[in-house]
């Protein structure tokens, strides 16, 4: 099996568009569910996990949107395949470490994804491009309802859906959105925003969730509390906060162009320079520079290019995707060279950033 033949091509995956796509890259809602009579995966014996996995998988595959789904046990995936799935946000890094007795299923259009025997028996998510947390909730709610008629969920009236970790108890819901916030980072307002969002009981994390760095100015905002509030209230609250963050990001970009245009154009020009001309580049540096390149596209400095290009480059320059093109493991050094080659050749077709009329700005800067 070659996982790359199953997953959509990076250029197709990055071409999906949604509302407020300029700032909100994607929206996701995930639900945690467990079976009533089986210990949680972390506690269950391997034989029990294997059995539970089959039982859940068969039921998942029986639900309508999953009939043409791809599914696999974790033991049938190579380390590189698993990492590839992590880079596409279909499985968690924790799940990638799992072997026999755990698995996953992914719908044909890649909007629904189920992890079986991760921390909970079931972790199902709906993933949509742009700001669509409400639609993602509707999709996963429907899927969960279809599934519950055949699976005996661990549920109690008082505490709701029972989960391995008490932080997910009740609704078992995690609503999140991936945001690209270079304006707030460049104007040094990001920490203020993070603090304000934290005070509302929401978490701000890096690209791959808990405990990860905010590379490429990409931040994940999600709810933390799952008990004592209905799903739709949680979704609505997050949506409101997201709209405000979008506002702040747009304002920050506007202000930067008004007061510090030189600084912004300088960053973007240098980012383009390095991406288009380097001969060795790490994935971290690539992500950070691609963020600035994307900002340049948003600001119409690269008139013939669309944000989807940066998204595609973002996907294909990550370690597993890069190594998959060469069908095998590569040392970090070789990866950096390969990455730089790839970027140079792709950016050949991208003209240098336009130099906007700076007379007004220069006056401001002086």
């Amino acid at each position: 099996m070659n996982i790359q033949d199953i997953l959509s091509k990076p250029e197709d995956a990055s071409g999906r568009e949604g509302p407020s796509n300029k700032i909100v890259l994607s929206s996701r809602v995930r639900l945690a569910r467990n079976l009533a009579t089986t210990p949680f995966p972390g506690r269950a014996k391997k034989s029990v996990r294997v059995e539970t996995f089959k039982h859940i998988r068969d039921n998942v595959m029986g639900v309508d949107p999953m009939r043409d789904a791809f599914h696999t046990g974790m033991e049938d995936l190579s380390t590189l395949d698993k990492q590839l799935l992590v880079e596409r946000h279909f499985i968690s890094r924790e799940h990638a470490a799992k072997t026999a007795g755990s698995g996953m299923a992914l719908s044909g259009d890649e909007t629904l994804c189920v992890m079986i025997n991760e921390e909970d028996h079931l972790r199902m998510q709906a993933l949509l491009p742009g700001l669509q947390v409400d639609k993602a909730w509707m999709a996963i709610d429907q899927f969960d309802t279809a599934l519950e008629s055949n699976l005996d969920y661990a549920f109690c009236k008082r505490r709701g859906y029972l989960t391995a970790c008490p932080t997910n108890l009740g609704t078992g819901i995690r609503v999140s959105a991936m945001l690209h916030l270079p304006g707030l980072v460049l104007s040094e307002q990001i920490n203020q925003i993070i603090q304000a969002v934290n005070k509302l009981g929401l978490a701000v994390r890096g690209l791959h969730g808990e405990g990860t760095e905010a590379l490429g100015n990409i931040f994940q905002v999600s709810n933390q509390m799952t008990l004592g509030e209905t799903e739709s209230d949680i979704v609505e609250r997050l949506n409101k906060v997201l709209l405000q963050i979008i506002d702040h990001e747009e304002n920050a970009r506007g202000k930067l162009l008004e007061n510090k245009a030189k600084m912004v154009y300088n960053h973007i020009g240098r980012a383009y320079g390095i991406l288009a001309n380097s001969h060795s580049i790490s994935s971290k540096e690539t992500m950070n520079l691609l963020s600035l390149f994307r900002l340049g596209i948003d600001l119409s400095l690269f008139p013939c290019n669309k944000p989807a290009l940066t998204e595609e480059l973002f996907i294909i320059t990550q370690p597993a995707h890069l190594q998959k093109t060469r069908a095998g493991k590569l040392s970090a050094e070789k990866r950096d060279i390969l990455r730089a080659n790839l970027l140079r050749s792709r950016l050949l077709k991208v003209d240098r950033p336009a130099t906007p009329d700076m007379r007004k700005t220069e006056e401001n800067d002086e």
Partner: protein
Amino acid sequence: MLCDICKENEATVHLTQMVEGKTKKIDLCESCSKAKGVDDPTGFSLADLLLGLGASQEMEESGNTMGKCPKCGFSQTDFKKTGRLGCPDCYDHFTEGVESLLKSMHKGTRHVGKAPAVWQQTKVYVDRLHSLQSKLDKAVAKEDYEKAAQLRDEISRVKSEYSESTIS
């Protein structure tokens, strides 16, 4: 007095806050108080801080008397180590410790969201029964016995309907 968090430095910041109607106190050294954002009084909630201290202590205390979960053999030490419970029954077994943990973690301690369809049926039934019962009580209080008799019949009808629907 030593800092409650690092247990190394002298505590210089002393905090008292009402959490869920109880007075909670905590003593911190300067660096820990900064690390926890205590110097910013608007954003600081003692509950968040106690999540790491009080909750696990309470879990530990109740755990000592409760021992292991009869269903999966999960113990308090396991919880401390992993931060996860062993099986759905653990929630019933470690009720007290879990309850205080939930208070500090979530908006409430009672679930108000989605329920599986089987449970929703039950909820509709229970709600209907409750409202009929209170109407019956009112009727009796008003000595309106005709109404009360009607309501009594209605209650027994709802009850028998429900037991039939759950059997089938």
